[in-house]
């Protein structure tokens, strides 16, 4: 009994300590804030002076993961001499290791100055204030490249009247087909699908002739969204979750899965649909042009064809998403203006755009469209899809919404007794995340 009492005492002590600690930090917040302001003002003044004598080089850092450095480094060539800013690349082990700790890094002032941010689950970061708006740098001319960005990209990155990043490349969704398997199933170019019914027909052939699923379906929000859009639906920031189109799209996936036409990467123990198409566990998948680089490096002998994402019968105008990452300034950096200058420099650099083209990406600047078509003939048709493509339109809850969508679909697919329908899923999501 004594021990329990002692424990309770310790707990009480802990709680009271905590309360004191919190009070202390609360009262100190305003003062530390003013300090921040002062120091950033100090930096501003030192900046103007450093621009004057142009001798000092300011080093800023760009954060990322995977092979991001290959993508961005060519854009920084000659930057140090030109504007006196040097970019260092800070590679995080995984995207989760970066995002999960970003708030603490910002608080501790160890976060990188800028990053590449995609237009998928970006709203929570913007709404929580982790991304700094750069509208004032566009207004004062520090960033002059905003004008050359296409209008639909502008729409994506202008949130509540502020610009939160400069998009540097864009990727309409594609439908990838492993042509080796396609030919093995004795299907021809003429059979390439235009509608989801065509896809189902091909799936039947794969099941009958090769005894395998034809379609790979990755249980991630990106892929769900392609299906919804191709049925004429979409999320529209949470306004249109519960629509017959979205319900029909999800139901299509569920039905096709139940009939054995679909395999998910999840069941194969991998996370990326490209792996499945490459290993030949399925022939078709929704994807993006990042397949190009991945396949060239990892499976150079597999023949892949990229076509437009199929659509539902009667929805010929439907078009998939526009994946448009941008360069965004993170909160808490001490060189905001230099960062804006660096972003502008990269965007104006031809070698940056040309490197992106070589990697299979369409640069954000329409001036490079012809060059892209010329260098990447297999993807040329994608350029025409750019103006028609849409933002992802996820509700402001971002990742929370995506996780809920995935969980509900996993329940529908991976529980063999499940009776969940597409209509139920979109209804529940609308209730929780609808705007």
């Amino acid at each position, binding site marked *: 009994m004594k021990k329990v009492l002692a424990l309770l005492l310790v707990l009480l002590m802990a709680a009271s300590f905590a309360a004191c600690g919190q009070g202390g930090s609360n009262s100190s917040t305003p003062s530390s804030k003013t300090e921040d302001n002062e120091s950033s003002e100090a930096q501003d003044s030192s900046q103007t002076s450093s621009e004057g004598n142009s001798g000092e080089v300011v080093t800023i850092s760009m954060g990322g993961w995977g092979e*991001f450095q290959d993508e961005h480094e060519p854009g920084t060539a000659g930057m140090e001499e030109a504007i006196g800013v040097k970019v260092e690349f800070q590679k995080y082990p995984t995207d989760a290791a970066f995002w999960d700790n970003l708030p*603490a890094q910002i608080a501790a002032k160890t976060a990188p100055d800028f990053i590449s941010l995609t237009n998928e689950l970006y709203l929570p970061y913007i709404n929580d204030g982790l991304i700094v708006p750069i509208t004032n740098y566009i207004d004062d001319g520090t960033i002059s490249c905003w004008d050359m960005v296409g209008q639909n990209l502008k729409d994506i990155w202008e949130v509540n009247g502020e610009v939160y990043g400069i998009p540097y490349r864009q990727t309409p969704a594609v439908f990838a087909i492993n042509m080796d398997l396609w030919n093995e199933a004795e299907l021809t170019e003429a059979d390439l699908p235009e509608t989801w019914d065509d896809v189902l027909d091909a799936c039947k052939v794969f099941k009958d002739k090769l005894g395998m699923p034809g379609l790979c379906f990755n249980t991630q929000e990106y892929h769900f969204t392609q299906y919804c859009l191709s049925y004429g639906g979409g999320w529209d920031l949470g306004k249109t979750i519960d629509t017959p189109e979205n319900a029909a799209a999800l139901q299509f996936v569920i039905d096709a899965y139940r009939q054995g036409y679909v395999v998910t990467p999840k069941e194969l123990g991998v996370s990326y649909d490209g792996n499945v198409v490459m290993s030949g566990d399925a022939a078709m998948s929704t994807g993006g042009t990042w397949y190009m680089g991945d396949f060239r490096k990892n499976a150079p002998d597999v023949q892949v064809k990229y076509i437009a994402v199929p659509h539902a019968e009667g929805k010929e105008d439907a078009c998939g998403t526009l994946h448009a990452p941008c360069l965004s300034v993170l909160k808490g950096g001490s060189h905001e203006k230099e960062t804006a200058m660096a972003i502008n420099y990269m965007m104006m650099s031809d070698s940056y755009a040309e490197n992106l083209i070589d990697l299979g990406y369409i640069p954000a600047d329409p001036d490079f469209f012809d060059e892209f078509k010329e260098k990447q003939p297999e993807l040329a048709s994608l350029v025409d899809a750019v103006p028609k493509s849409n933002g992802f339109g996820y509700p402001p809850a971002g990742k929370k919404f995506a996780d809920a969508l995935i969980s509900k679909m996993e329940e529908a697919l991976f529980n063999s007794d499940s009776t969940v329908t597409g209509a139920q899923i979109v209804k529940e999501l609308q209730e929780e995340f609808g705007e």
Partner: protein
Amino acid sequence: MAKKRIGKVFTYLFLICLALIFLVPVFYVFYNSLLPKRYIGTFVPPDVWSFDNYKELFSEFPIMRWYGNTALSTVAVVAGNIFFTPLAGYALARLRFPGRKAIFLCLMLSMMIPGQLVLLPQYIMMAKAGMVDTLWAITLPYLSQSMFIFMSRQFFYGIPEELEEAARIDGLGRFGTYFRIVLPISGVLLATIAIFNFTGTWNSYLVPSTFISSADKYVLVVGLQTVNNQHFQQENLTLAGVVLLSFPVIGFFMFTQKFFVQGIATAGLKG
């Protein structure tokens, strides 16, 4: 006699099955790590086997550097725990002093709080101390872990007190008793702490991936995560990485095994 023999046969059969259950997956990993990516998960003749995956890992990633970082931080942490935790555990089990119970309870509490909770407050503290993105961050806070204090305390409860009393009558002080009499017969404890602590620190992922963010300071587990491209999974390299990661720990276990045998020897003498 026959009955006994049958029992023996069953015991060994059971043990062999047991060893297989534990070893087959391990060998399966090793086997797969020798295959090119497209053959993974299939059975192919030995002429396809090669060390190419390992060669690729060593040539494209600073594996030796990551090994070095891992070894340095692990050795430091294990040394710290071997020194500090039996010391505290001994005091908590044997010495009477005010606050003993409270201290033990507090240490127990810290085992019950999920590590994820204190991760970010620790990060901010470290940033203030300028330790973020250095090996200090994954070493200093872990030099004395409550789990091993608890383990030591239980261990010291279990050994007879007469020996220490005799030593003290011979005029040895508390420190002398601990270092000259108690520690030398605690081989099993020290080996246990060393093994567990070595394994845990060597393989820890969440802590180093949070506290360290530049490639030249990664530990092996974290570095191997970057072997996969942004999207693409390189299972062949991942598997080879797992082997590279595991074999020093297995070696360490084989090595410390000996101390267990010594432990028996001293226990026999003591009895």
